[in-house]
Each structure stands twice: as C-alpha cells, then as structure tokens.
C-alpha cells in the first residue's frame, strides 16, 4: 500500500530536478511586507491609557462593592423594620382571634351565644326552636343565672375600651 504513496511523494522532486534553470542565480527580491497600519498613539501614551483604564475599572469595581455594603446595611435595616411590622401584625391578629377576645367583641356588638339548634332531618325537625336570649353586658360563659346577674353589675362600670386608644368605647 505504501508503494504508490512513496512514488507520489517522490514525483515532484523528480519534476523539480527535471525543471531547466531559467538563470544562473536564484532570484532574490526584497519582500514587501503586507501593508501595516501605523500605530497612531505612541507606546508610552498607550501604556498610560491602559493603566488608567485598568485603574478606573478597579475603582469602579471597588465603588460598586462598597456601595453594595451600604445597600446591605440599608436593606438589613429595612428588613428588620418590616419583620417588626410583621411581628406586630401577627401579634395583633393572634390577640384578636383568641376566643375570649372574640367573645368580648361579640358581646360588645350585642351578640349572644346561640340557643340549642334545631336540626332538620328526614324525620322532620329535631329539637324545639328557642328565642335567642337578650344580650347581657358580659359573655354568658357562666352557667348559673344568678351568677350572670352579679357579674353584669360590675362589668357595666368598667369601660370595655380598646387597648390602644385610652378612651372608653362609645356606647
């Protein structure tokens, strides 16, 4: 397989040998370099420029990093304030959704605990409907009727005002 290849490689060499000389000396010419654009800036100026650009870039990076540090501080403060606000909101929500707070609010609004319900089933109505009791000043959590009367007397003297505003609620 290599035989034809070798032959092919040798062929041009033989051809060169075979070429007749055109002159007695090899022709030497001045090779004209390809057109090179001349640098407009002198080298020192270019160096200074590059260096300044580098330094400027470095400065900008530093400013950016330092700026971030300030932003982090500011954002941290903002985040803390927002966390405080959220916590205050959560706390207020928890306080207001607590059963006794709801009961108190409901009583203030003139609501009363529901009487025993009447159920409608396939066998008809189960239970006897009762008229809701008229509102009292205190949540009727107690079971003894006389007890409610006693509590009512004292509760009416206390203003059931808001926690935030110091004024008694309008009645």
């Amino acid at each position: 397989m290599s035989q034809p290849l070798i032959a092919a490689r040798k062929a041009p060499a033989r051809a060169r040998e075979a070429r007749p000389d055109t002159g007695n000396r090899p022709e030497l010419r001045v090779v004209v370099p390809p057109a090179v654009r001349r640098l407009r800036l002198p080298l020192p100026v270019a160096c200074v420029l590059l260096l300044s650009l580098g330094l400027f870039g470095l400065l900008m990076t530093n400013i950016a990093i330092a700026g971030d540090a300030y932003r982090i501080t500011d954002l941290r403060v903002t985040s803390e304030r927002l966390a405080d606000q959220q916590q205050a909101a959560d706390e207020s929500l928890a306080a207001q959704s607590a059963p006794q707070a709801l009961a108190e609010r409901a009583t203030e609004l003139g609501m009363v605990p529901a009487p025993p319900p009447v159920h409608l089933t396939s066998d008809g109505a189960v239970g006897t409907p009762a008229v809701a009791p008229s509102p009292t000043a205190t949540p009727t959590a107690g079971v003894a009727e006389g007890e409610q009367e006693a509590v009512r007397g004292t509760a009416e003297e206390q203003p059931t005002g808001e926690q935030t505003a110091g004024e008694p609620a309008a009645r």
Partner: protein
Amino acid sequence: MPRPPAARRTAARTAPRAGASDVRPDRRLRAFVITVLVALSLLAGRLVQLQGADAAELAQAAFNQRVHTTTLYAQRGDVLDANGTVLATSVERRDVVADPSILASFNTRADGTARDESLPQGAAGAAQVLAPLLGVDEAGLTATLTGSGPEDQYALVAVGITPELWQRVSDADVPGITSERTAQRIYPSGSAASTLVGVLGTSETKDGKTIDRPLSGLELAENDLLEGVDGQVRYERSLRGQEIPLGESETTEPVDGTSLHLTIDADLQWKAASAIAAQVEATGAKSGTVVVMDAQQRLLALASSPSIDPSDLTSFTNEELNNTALTDSFEPGSTAKVITMAAVLEEGSSTAASEFTVPDELKRSTKVFHDSHEHEDQQLTLAGILAESSNTGTIMAGEELDAQTLYDYQREFGLGEETGMDFPGETGGILATPEEYSGTQRYTVMFGQGMSVNAVQAASVFATVANDGVRVPPTLIAGTSDPDGNYRANGVPAGTRVVSSQTAETLRDMMQAVVSEEGTAAAADIPGYLVAGKTGTAQRYDIDCGCYRGYTASFIGLAPADDPQLVVAVILQDPKSNYYGGSAAGPVFKDVMGYALQQRGVEPSGDAPAGLPLTWGAEG
C-alpha cells in the same frame, strides 16, 4: 602626557584652603550622618519589632476593634391548637437602658449653653423628649434618667416595649439611650389554656444573663423541642457600623425551635375554661376540671380552674399553675361504677335486665354500706342500679366477680398508671392490687372509693365505652412542625379491646337512663341528642387533714349515645353550696357538651332513647 602636571596643579590649588576650615564641616557631616543613622536604626528596630515580633498580636488587636459580634436569636417554637390558632408564641421586645453619665450633658454645648433653648438641659430635657413616646410620667422619668448621679452608667428606663415603639424612641436620637433585645412569650388565649400550655418564666444565670425557664405545662414538658439554639454573626465593620466588604465574616445560623400542634380546640378550651371557672365560683369549690375528648381519646380541651394569668407572672400560687385534669387525683366515686358494670356484663354474670332486690344498707366484712339516701327495699334491674347510682346494688352485682377480675378490668380501662402523655406533675392515681386490699376495700372500689384517678383517666373510661370497647391511649400532641415548616404527624397509638362492642353498647344504653327523669342527672340532658353519662358524688380525701372531708362532684358523659363522638368530664373538688354530681357538675356538662356538639356539627340523634327497664315486678 599633560596629566601629571594637571594633577599636581589641583593639589596645589586645594591644599592651602584645607588647612583652617576643613575640620568643622567634616565633623558636622559625620555627626549628622550618625544622628540620622541612629534615628533610622531606631525606626528600623521599631519596624522590626512591630512587623516581626509583635505583628500577630497587633493585627489581632486591630481585628478585634473592627470585628463585631451580634447574636442571632432563635425563635422558640409556637404552640398551636388543632386549627392553627396560636396558643403560645414568642415576640421580640426591647428593654430601654439609659446611661445617666451621658444624659447629664444632654442638650448642652461644650461652653455650657443649651443647643435648643426650648428644652431643659440634662436629664430633664431628655425626659421631656422621651416621656410622651414611652407614655410615662415626665417627673418620674427625670428621676430615672438622673440615676444615682453623674457616675451612674446604667438605668433601666422601660421594660418590654415593642420594637416599633423602640424605633420611635431610637429616632428621637437621645444620646446615651440604648436598648437590649429580649424575647417575650405571649399567650393569646390567656388564662383559658394557661395551665395546659404552661408558662415560660425567666431566671438569672450566675453571670447575670436572663434566660428562659419554663415553669409548667407543655412549655416545660416539651422544652427540648420548643427551645431553639441561638446563632451569631461576626463581621468586620467600619467606624460607622458598615460591614467592610470582602472582610472576614463568620455566621452561625440560629436554629429555631419546633412548633407543637395540639389536638386541643382553642374555642372549646375557652368554653370549657370559662364554664368551669364560673361554676367553681358559684359553688365555692376548691378547684374544677373539664376534660373534653373524642372517642379516639384525642383531647379537645383540658381546662382547670383556678388558672394562672400568663400575662402577669408576678404573683401566682402552685394551684394556679397546675392543670388539675392531670396533676390532681381524686376518688372517682360513682363514675367508677361504670367499670364494675362493664366487668359484670362482659363476664356475663348479669345482664342489663338482671333483677336485684336492693336494700338501703348492706353489711359486708366489718362495715355497713349505705346508699346516699334511705329507702325501702327496691326492685331494680342492673340498669336501674346504675341510673339510681345505688352503692348497695353495685356491691350485690359486683361481688359476683372475684377481686382480681375486677382489678384486671380497672387496669385495662387505664386506671392505676399514668396516661403516657409525659405531662409535668402528672399523677397516675392509686389503684391497690387485691393482695394489698385492706378491710372493706374489696367492696369500696366497686363504687369508686378507696382508689384514685385523674380526670383524664376518668374520662378515658367513658371514651373506651364510646369507642365500642376499644381503648386508645389519650393523645394531646397531634404533630410537630420543624423550623422549615415541615409538619410531621405523631403516630396514632394502637387501641386495645377492653370489652366487646356489645357490652359497650349495653353500657351506653344503661347510662342513658342516668340523664332521664328517673336518673340522677336530669340537668345534663341536651335537647336533640341522646346523652349517656354517670354522676359521681364521692367523699373527698383531704391531704391537709389526712381524713375524708368535703365531696368530689363529677359528671362524665358521652354524646350522642347512638353514635358517640364526644366525651366530656366535669369534676368539682370540694364544692360548698351544692355537692351532688348531677346538679353541680351536670349543668357544666350540658353547657360544654351542647356547645361542642354544635361547634363540631355533630348530627342529632336519630334513634329513639334506649328506655331500658329500671325496675322489675312493679306492674305484676
């Protein structure tokens, strides 16, 4: 060639000048050089000392000046009810601290004149600025801010203000006013759940730091879970507090505590707590307890009265701290007859319709047992004995079983051992083995004297009957959620069969008669629902005198009797005005159970009342 003469010429020219004035510049120069060299070598020496010998130490000192350590506080886990209502949570609070030595020169220039003419100078001026913000009396605040004199450097101005208020105080820009961060535990449900959830107090460590110290309830029992681990951040900062970019920083993240999700329903808990508190007051009882659980013994409410107000920990008694549902054991009295009846029915020695002729007194061993009231001999069925709560009848039915059999049933119903909830201060009650029985104890245990239980154990017996005879250990904690919010449900404990479902059903039918007109607790009847229950009026063992004094009034019941969903136990210790279980505890049962059925949307009973015969032979 001309060089030698030239050299000579130079020498000749300089020589004459050297003679007189050459010495002084030379010596001056030399002295100068030496001085400079000495100075330089001193500097060099110092340089070597600083850079070489002390370098590490000094760099560390500088680093310590720049570095700042802040504690990152871990949040304690919350306690939530079954619906996510907060029962306990932690919030941030600030303690405002003043430095009177700085405040003495408030609003004062270096020359002693006031910066702001409209404000007084010194502490009085600072007080005028801060008093309206903090909402305190100005004169009092002036005294606080003055401290014990200009050398005083610490005065506590306000405790536990909200971060928002602190922000406004801080914005007022009064020098010498700083704050210390604290965490405060708040309990939105107040005293209604305080004995169950517990309270978190504080105590001081040896080095003067204030740390949390759980005092009672779940706060104490589950402290390891609830408690978080504080972290800290260390970073290099500039003079004005900015973090130095690319400086060294090290953060240890805090680990928040795990939150507890209870089986408790906050609304029901409040209802139970307020109902029992009112009845304790009305009857002049020493304490009162309400237990609400479902048939699978998930506790829905554990209320006790008196209870501590968690927002005011300045004064409280141990009684207010304890949840009597678990920490208080008592002789159950007639409610324990249910166990005797269960054993009798399950062993087949009697049926609900078995006929007994019941006298009002009965001599057994050395003692004569009485019923609660005198009566002629009654012809009662087993159901009638339970409905009338006859002691003598219970002995007649119960003595057909041997002591060991009855004891085994009592154990299987969960008596004589703790409930396994790991509640602080829980008592498992006392249940003597037949070998330990003294005198008449063999008979008294049949009607619930000479043994003691806690309220949850007592309710548990009825829940087992409600659950068709299968006893599931009581649970209080449904699950936990880790700081990332991943919820993990606690496993449901496996149930064990105590009595057959047939026996359980018969017991429920028998107990329906208790709330009927003929029974002992007509006051506990709830319209629309079939209620099965049992009163208890037991003599109360008083530890103070070591004798029996006063009574324990109780009513424990389940509803609806035809499809049991809920169990409510009401126990009043030492009520003064009314000590009968039916009339003292019955109305509370009705109130709480009625509310619970309505709140949980339980369907009314479809079946007709069981109406088991209570007497025999009357018609014939």
